[in-house]
């Protein structure tokens, strides 16, 4: 294949064509984003601190409210399993509803509950995933979404979900799959599942 033949093939490739309404709507969609008050537009670095603080306070209040009903007087230690909190579909659903398409992760570890919000644009809508990682000393749990890179148990990982409901965690030096539940080289104990928010 010579250069002009390659050029010919490349130029013959056409893009998917959306309906005509898309091209009418897109500029208006951009204009709407511009017309939103600054506090409602995509988060900027200078605005995230007070909103993150409110998010944390709100999330903690919600956790305390659920804890009062759920634990019925049980003592919570820093290393206590987080499953009871983040596996609570109602808590997760209400948190996500407060920050639509902005939540990258809800994390619980021995430092408490954290809400990680996107600062670079909307988080694509996808079913939430529950991940729990234990390194033998501490246990961390989080709810996140496919494609998010998160820090858990001292490790940076990318969380991915496939169409069959399998979950993959990719760290710097390991890969874990919910289908195979393997990674004999890692000292981490990992549990992951899709979170069904419709269930209560």
């Amino acid at each position, binding site marked *: 294949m010579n250069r002009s033949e390659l050029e010919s093939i490349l130029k013959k490739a056409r*893009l998917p064509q959306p309906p005509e309404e898309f091209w009418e709507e897109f500029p208006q969609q951009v204009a709407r984003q511009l017309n939103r008050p600054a506090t409602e537009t995509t988060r900027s670095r200078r605005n995230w601190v007070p909103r993150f603080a409110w998010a944390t306070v709100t999330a903690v209040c919600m956790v305390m409210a659920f804890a009062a009903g759920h634990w019925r007087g049980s003592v919570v230690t820093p290393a206590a399993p987080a499953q009871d909190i983040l596996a609570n579909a109602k808590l997760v659903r209400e948190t996500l509803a407060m920050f639509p398409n902005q939540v990258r992760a809800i994390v619980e570890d021995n430092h408490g509950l954290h809400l990680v919000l996107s600062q670079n644009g909307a988080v694509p809508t996808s079913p939430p995933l529950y991940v729990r990682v234990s390194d033998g000393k501490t246990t961390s749990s989080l709810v996140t979404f496919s494609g998010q890179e998160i820090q858990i148990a001292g490790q940076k990982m990318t969380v991915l979900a496939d169409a069959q409901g399998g979950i993959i965690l990719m760290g710097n030096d390991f890969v874990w799959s919910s289908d195979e539940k393997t990674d004999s080289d890692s000292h981490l104990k990992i549990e992951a599942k899709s979170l069904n928010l419709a269930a209560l």
Partner: protein
Amino acid sequence: MARMAPPDDERNWIQNSLAGDTEAFAALVKEHQKMVIALAFRMTGSWADAEDLAQETFLRAFRQLNSFRAESKLSTWLCQIAVNLSLNWRARESRRGEVHSTWSENVITETPAGFPDALSGRVQSALDKLPPKQRAAMVLTVYENHNHAEAAKILNCSEATVSWRVFAARQKLKRLLKGISHEPL
């Protein structure tokens, strides 16, 4: 062929946008949306990502419009924003590349959803396999019809670097697209 707005119209829209007129900016979006979305799609291979990137391109352009120099073309400036956003997107996605390629081995090779024909899908798949900066060089020179000097300004590199990236990209694309019919247009 799409009719381009007269230069005076575009200058007025820019001026009014600088004054905060979002409807004027929407007119600019309408004028350049197809180019920006097409570029973003070629860079990402995903319509959803292209739409998000295009929206982010225009939002960023609005915020930085006072830095746009009127002596250059708005379309080139938008190209630069879109390419840079796409390259940053690609850097985030590159970690998924190995896993996706593993999954894709089990995918039946038929016309990907949304492409009008198999050739278009195959070309996009081949573009997806290029390193991001080589891909950007090809998209700018083949699809946006920039010469190497213009592409170099957009990519903030030397013309020689663009030439090298285009050369390397062509070699790879020839291997990936071997066997496709190449009757002249």
